């Protein structure tokens, strides 16, 4: 059995080695050998994946717990660095390291010839380290380390091409918006600490505590504090997982290299919010108000982002909004306490969204950096493998029967419908969103791969299929996109996935299980889902297959009413966050500081005037000075004598 500590250690080692290579080679003209760097870059995540796979096969029922050492030990607060490998972290780790390794492989092709080749892989390894720590840790504080760590890597990778200030700004935005959420996480932890001391940050202790509270019928006593903590944690999740209201950073994050978008901003990092909800499931299960908020936020996000996805021209932006929308589904599932379903969707989503992004990356690569879909078209013949991968992934995301998305999405919708409160209404919105999903994804596929090429003639010459090193990961992911769903094919009775998660989230789900089990045949849900997908695809075909695409002019950003919708939350942020802060800063800088400076100046001026006044007495005659001081002495002696020394 290998130590749990080794799993995050591999990517960390990789990061250090690659970082050293990057720094050392920065002076040289040529840069390090790409083959060597690429091998190292893939080796460490792959080792880590191997370790996880080994552990996953031999995992005992209760999971593996391992405390490495003490981290923080001060009065009132003591936290250890410890790892917890159970059903939940097993699944998360498997696909994090697996997809991470695949995308590292893909990046070798994608980043070929870039000046920051080694630096890029150092960041990727650092990201994997943080992500592994996030999911493997056994307490909230260590999770927070990974949580901020992945945010940091996201920042570094979005701003990877830092010569362009626009990328830096997007990176800054991502980090700051995430910071807002992180503060929520932080305060949530503090809130928990007030209830049960620092030990409660440990997941096991927390769930023990919750079960104690339930057994002792003291639920209503702790609910006020726990609700506050729950809401704070949820704010943290909205930041990391790009939910309303902290979602504006994700579309901008597409400024980074495409493999990064696939790995961080689709498959792994953005799903850590869902992971956290599932991890704290036992706590959230007690808090109906918070759960309702989560459902509503998830629903609104899913719907809003799906509509926004319709308006985008940039291929990566479409995928970004689609990610937000899918994350909305996952939150809806969490909100009805169907944590296993939400994690299942995280799992399948990781495959098909990564495949979509990698496909988009291959397209962009083929078109030498062009991202505007209005300038694409007809690529099916030029890049057939990429097109096949993307079409498979497309079928998965829209929930075409048999593909992975079908299983997970329908599962979520079913669970939502089953939940007692306002389940039906949410279900309807979810279904409508599914239709819209099919429409915008259909639009993406049609604009990109069908019709005729709309770019310039000379660029058409250079279109080529991606190299094998990029294609292999894509194909593997496409397989995943097709077959990953069969781990929990409810309708045909495979429940492997649910069973492996049950030890972790089972209790929470049981606590909040719907009181009335509606007797609806699962096949009905499947049928409705299929209809929604087909309807969406049909609409997309009708609208876009034969429509004349307006020629691309200027930027790929949407305009007019579409822009209002797309940038709705940007403008809300602007008015709620940025402008007030700037006004405050202006007041501090221009008003308060100037007042202080004026006060300071006034006091200084008074002192100067007094000093000048005194200085006029100082004539350039030494004897006169002495004479004056004798006079002063006389006066002093006289005063002392006259007052009898009592002065």
């Amino acid at each position, binding site marked *: 059995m290998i130590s749990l500590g080794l799993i995050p250690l591999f990517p960390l080692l990789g990061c250090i080695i690659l970082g050293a290579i990057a720094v050392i080679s920065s002076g040289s003209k040529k840069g390090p050998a790409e083959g060597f760097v690429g091998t190292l870059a893939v080796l460490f995540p792959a080792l880590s994946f191997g370790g996880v796979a080994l552990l996953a096969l031999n995992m005992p029922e209760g999971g593996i717990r391992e405390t490495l050492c003490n981290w923080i030990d001060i009065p009132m607060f003591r936290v250890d660095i410890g790892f917890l490998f159970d059903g939940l972290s097993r699944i998360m780790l498997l696909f994090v390291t697996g997809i991470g390794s695949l995308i590292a492989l893909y990046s070798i092709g994608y980043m070929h010839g870039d000046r920051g080749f080694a630096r890029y892989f150092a960041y990727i390894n650092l990201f994997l380290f943080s992500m592994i720590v996030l999911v493997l840790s056994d307490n909230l504080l260590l999770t927070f380390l990974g949580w901020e760590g992945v945010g940091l890597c996201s920042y570094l990778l979005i701003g990877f091409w830092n010569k362009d200030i626009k990328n830096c700004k997007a990176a800054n935005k991502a980090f700051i918006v995430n910071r807002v959420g992180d503060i929520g996480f932080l305060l949530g932890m503090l809130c928990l600490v007030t209830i049960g001391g620092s030990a409660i940050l440990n997941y096991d202790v927390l769930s023990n505590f919750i079960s104690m509270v339930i057994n002792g019928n003291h639920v209503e006593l702790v609910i006020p504090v726990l609700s506050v903590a729950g809401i704070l944690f949820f704010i943290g999740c909205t930041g990391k997982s790009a939910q309303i209201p902290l979602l504006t950073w994700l579309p901008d994050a597409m400024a980074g290299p495409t493999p990064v978008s696939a790995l961080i901003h689709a498959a792994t990092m953005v799903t850590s919010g869902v992971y956290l909800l599932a991890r704290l499931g036992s706590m959230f299960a007690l808090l109906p108000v918070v759960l309702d908020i989560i459902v509503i936020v998830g629903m609104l996000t899913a719907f809003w982002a799906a509509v926004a996805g319709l308006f985008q021209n940039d291929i990566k932006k479409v995928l970004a909004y689609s990610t937000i929308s899918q994350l909305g589904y996952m939150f809806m599932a969490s909100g009805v306490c169907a944590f296993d379903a939400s994690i299942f969707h995280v799992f399948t989503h990781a495959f098909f969204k990564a495949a979509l992004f990698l496909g988009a990356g291959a397209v962009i690569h083929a078109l030498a950096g062009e991202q505007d879909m209005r300038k694409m078209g007809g690529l099916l013949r030029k890049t057939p493998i990429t097109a096949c991968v993307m079409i498979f992934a497309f079928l998965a995301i829209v929930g075409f029967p048999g593909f992975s998305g079908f299983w997970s999405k329908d599962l979520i919708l079913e669970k939502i419908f089953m939940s007692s409160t306002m389940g039906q209404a949410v279900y309807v919105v979810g279904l409508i969103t599914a239709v819209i999903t099919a429409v915008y994804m259909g639009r993406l596929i049609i604009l990109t791969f069908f019709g005729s090429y709309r770019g310039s003639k000379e660029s058409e010459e250079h279109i080529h299929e991606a190299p094998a090193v990029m294609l292999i990961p894509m194909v593997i992911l496409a397989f995943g996109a097709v077959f990953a769903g069969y781990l929990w094919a409810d309708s045909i009775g495979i429940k492997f996935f649910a069973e492996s998660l049950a030890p972790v989230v089972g209790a929470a789900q049981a606590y909040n299980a719907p009181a009335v089990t509606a007797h609806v045949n699962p096949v009905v849900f499947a049928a409705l889902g299929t209809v929604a997908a087909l309807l969406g695809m049909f609409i997309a075909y009708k609208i876009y297959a034969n429509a004349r695409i307006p020629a691309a002019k200027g930027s790929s950003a949407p305009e007019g009413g579409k822009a209002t919708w797309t940038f709705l939350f940007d403008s809300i942020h602007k008015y709620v966050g940025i402008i007030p802060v700037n006004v405050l800063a202006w007041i501090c800088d221009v008003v308060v500081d100037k007042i202080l400076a004026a006060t300071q100046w006034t006091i200084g001026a008074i002192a100067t005037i007094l000093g000048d006044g005194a*200085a006029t007495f*100082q004539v*350039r*005659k*030494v*004897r006169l000075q*002495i*004479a004056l001081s*004798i006079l002063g002495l006389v006066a002093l002696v006289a005063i002392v004598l006259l007052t009898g020394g009592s002065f």
Partner: protein
Amino acid sequence: MELQAMYVQILALVIFAIGLIVAVSRRNVFFVLMGVELALNAVNLSFVGFAKTLPAEASIVGQVVPLFSIAVAAAEACVGLAMVILIFRNRESVDADTYSNMKG
């Protein structure tokens, strides 16, 4: 009539006053220095006079301090005269009022 401690102090006071007047009102720099010496002498006298009003052991202190004060006066005179020489070389004058190139 016996010698009173008061008389010594009054003598010291008178000499001190004269020394001060010499130091401040005369303009010749040598007189200034001499005035200072005079005043210092007066202070020494006052020390000894007061020392004699104290009982046994304590009285010796007042007689030792003037020794130091004399030694310091010697150092002062030494440096002061050197400065007078230096300034005289530049100014060709012993009038203290002409020595006024201090900033202020």
